[in-house]
């Protein structure tokens, strides 16, 4: 209760930072009742999950606890975030089919990721008591420095990704409930905090499984809504022949294979979202929460399929909004993040409620994970790595305090980030995670030769470049011609590979036997 009181007081100071924007959806009593019920069920699941979170390892990690259906639904729900459900349609609306590569790549990328490192991530939970990703990194490289630098990287990346959720959540709550964005974000964050404070990572996984189901229902409703709005299957051809911007016919460019985005950015998206999906904590953490290693098979497939189905929302909602504007039924949007709500405005109130609930589920299910990861990265991993380890029985307590702090910092960043949309913040967070996790978990699991010195060098390069480019861009000093995180990822990988390659070769690279057994699996 103390945490929530402090959170409320500080939040009030920040809440007037948000400005109001246009409403597309008329809030109804049905929506309010639905939201209240949804929040109560989520909190109920959070309270129930306390039984799985008695130790810091269980609270932060839920290692070897759940079955494949729960984990698959939770993985899908956590990956398909505000970035997917609000940012995605916005990208389709503004750039045409460029971003379709993202959502197509991420779904099938899940099984690729499970294939290349899934069993090793699960196996490492058999040789050591691990709860967090930096824990695994410490065990793999026998180094607190790796643990510490990874924790710093995860902290920054979590806040970056969380800012996309808060940004999308602010817009959603305003549209859904008719409240100010500040109040909306407060309702959203308070709900997430309550069920996370009770259940930690277990609370996250169980509520996410429930939220995943809600999202799948929302997708089903969206499919029906799409055909109601467009009337037939030839809506793409209508857009192709009629869509104009500033008097110029652009329809053929919007719906071709690449859309309006430049080709180098599309190539970055293909790579980042196919390979990078496995480096997202939403998936990496799930690999070792599986009770039975055989469940890796079902989880890799079901998560990918569920994500594929959820992707329909990204595509159909974006195309639906584009169709409405092309037809002249709706005026062009000033802010692309409102594309989803423009689409929803043309559905019946009941359908709106189901889809809005799906959007809420997408945002909450991702937010809670990143709050948990940021809290554990600081409380358990970063402080532990610099010799200020918090007593075992106090870790959960301090983790809760840090959770509140992370939300407040994120809200401030959302305000500072100005006009950066949900998709831009989301893809920055996604790229940041890949930059820090790829050298540690992909290169580190696939190559025995990767040393702690190499990984620390890679992490320093990756974190510095991500932050450095963000600062240069913020002040208008320099902007790369393609996404910064791709450059940072490449530099981190190159550093890790070549520092590893040129180190002195020793027998078996001095790996402890249990680690060698994991890497040989």
């Amino acid at each position, binding site marked *: 209760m103390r945490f929530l009181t402090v959170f409320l007081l500080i939040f009030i100071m920040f809440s007037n930072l948000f400005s109001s924007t246009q409403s597309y959806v008329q809030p109804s009593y049905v929506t309010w009742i639905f939201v209240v019920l949804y929040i109560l069920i989520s909190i109920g699941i959070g309270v129930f999950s306390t039984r799985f979170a008695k130790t810091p390892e269980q609270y932060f990690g839920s290692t070897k606890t759940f079955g494949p259906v729960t984990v698959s639904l939770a993985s899908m729900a956590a990956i398909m975030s505000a970035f997917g459900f609000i940012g995605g349609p916005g990208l389709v609306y503004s750039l045409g089919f460029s971003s379709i590569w993202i959502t197509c*790549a991420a779904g099938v990328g899940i099984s690729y990721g499970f294939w290349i490192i899934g069993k090793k991530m699960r196996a490492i939970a058999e040789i050591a008591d691990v709860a967090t990703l930096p824990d695994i990194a410490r065990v793999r490289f026998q180094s607190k420095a790796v643990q510490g630098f990874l924790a710093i990287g995860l902290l920054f990346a979590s806040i970056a990704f969380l800012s996309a959720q808060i940004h999308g959540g602010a817009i959603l709550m305003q549209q859904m409930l008719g409240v100010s964005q500040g109040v909306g974000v407060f309702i959203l964050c308070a709900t997430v905090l309550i069920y996370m404070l009770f259940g930690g990572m277990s609370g996250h996984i169980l509520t996410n499984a429930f939220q995943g189901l809600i999202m799948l229902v929302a997708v089903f409703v969206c499919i029906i809504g799409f055909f109601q709005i467009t009337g037939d299957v030839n809506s793409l051809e209508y857009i192709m022949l009629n869509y104009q911007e500033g008097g110029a016919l652009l329809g053929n460019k919007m719906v071709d294979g690449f859309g309006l985005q430049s080709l180098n950015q599309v190539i970055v998206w293909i790579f980042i979202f196919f390979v990078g999906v496995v480096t997202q904590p939403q998936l990496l953490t799930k690999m070792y929460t599986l009770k039975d290693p055989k469940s890796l098979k079902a989880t890799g497939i079901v998560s990918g399929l569920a994500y594929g189905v959820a992707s329909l929302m990204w595509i159909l909602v974006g195309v639906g909004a584009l169709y409405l504007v092309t037809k002249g039924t709706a005026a062009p949007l000033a802010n692309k993040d409102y594309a989803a709500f423009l689409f929803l405005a043309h559905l019946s109130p009941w359908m709106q409620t189901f889809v809005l609930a799906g959007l809420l589920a997408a945002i909450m299910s991702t937010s809670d994970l990143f709050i948990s990861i940021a809290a554990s990265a600081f409380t358990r991993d970063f402080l532990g790595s610099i010799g200020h380890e918090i007593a075992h029985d106090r870790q959960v307590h301090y983790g809760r305090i840090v959770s509140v702090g992370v939300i407040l910092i994120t809200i401030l960043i959302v305000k500072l980030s100005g006009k950066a949309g949900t998709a831009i913040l989301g893809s920055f967070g996604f790229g940041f995670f890949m930059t820090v996790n790829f050298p540690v978990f992909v290169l580190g699991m696939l190559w025995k030769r990767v040393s702690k010195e190499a990984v620390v060098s890679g992490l320093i390069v990756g974190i510095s470049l991500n932050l450095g480019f963000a600062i240069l861009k913020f002040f208008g000093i320099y902007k790369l011609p393609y996404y910064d995180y791709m450059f940072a990822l490449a530099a981190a990988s190159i550093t890790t590979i070549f520092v590893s390659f040129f180190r002195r070769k020793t027998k078996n690279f001095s790996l402890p036997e249990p680690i060698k057994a994991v890497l040989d699996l």
Partner: protein
Amino acid sequence: MSNFVFSDKAVDNLHVTAGILWLFLTILLFFGQNMPLMYLAFLTILLLIIIYFVLGTMRENKIGFIFPLVYPILIMAVFWLLAFSIAMLTKGKVAVNFIFGMHPGWIAVLGFFWLGTFLTTTLGYALLFDTHILTESKWNNFMDKVSQMEKMN
């Protein structure tokens, strides 16, 4: 020729090749308006993906030729090449009365890129998991081995 066997040096070389490809990619991406160079950039990411796929599927430096090298890895690569090439060739063109009013470039993305990767990587993962990815005996051997060792910190 049922298996390819890689020496430790060959594995090192694959990683170093990947490092060089990473470097090459960062340079190519600066030329975003040049179509041939972007095709080269696409080939570079495809090669990187294949290299990590091969490294991730090999066990004790061995990889099966038909499974999983040809299926799913190389077949997936062919699907990607088809998808990207068709999308590039039809970029910006108007195509009326095509399948369900869809643009051929978009069909290529959906059919070859998404469905092609699904039929190879995702389906392959399901079909080969028990025989090529994590066999029961392999896991049991691992558990036997680690049960005789002390837990790590």
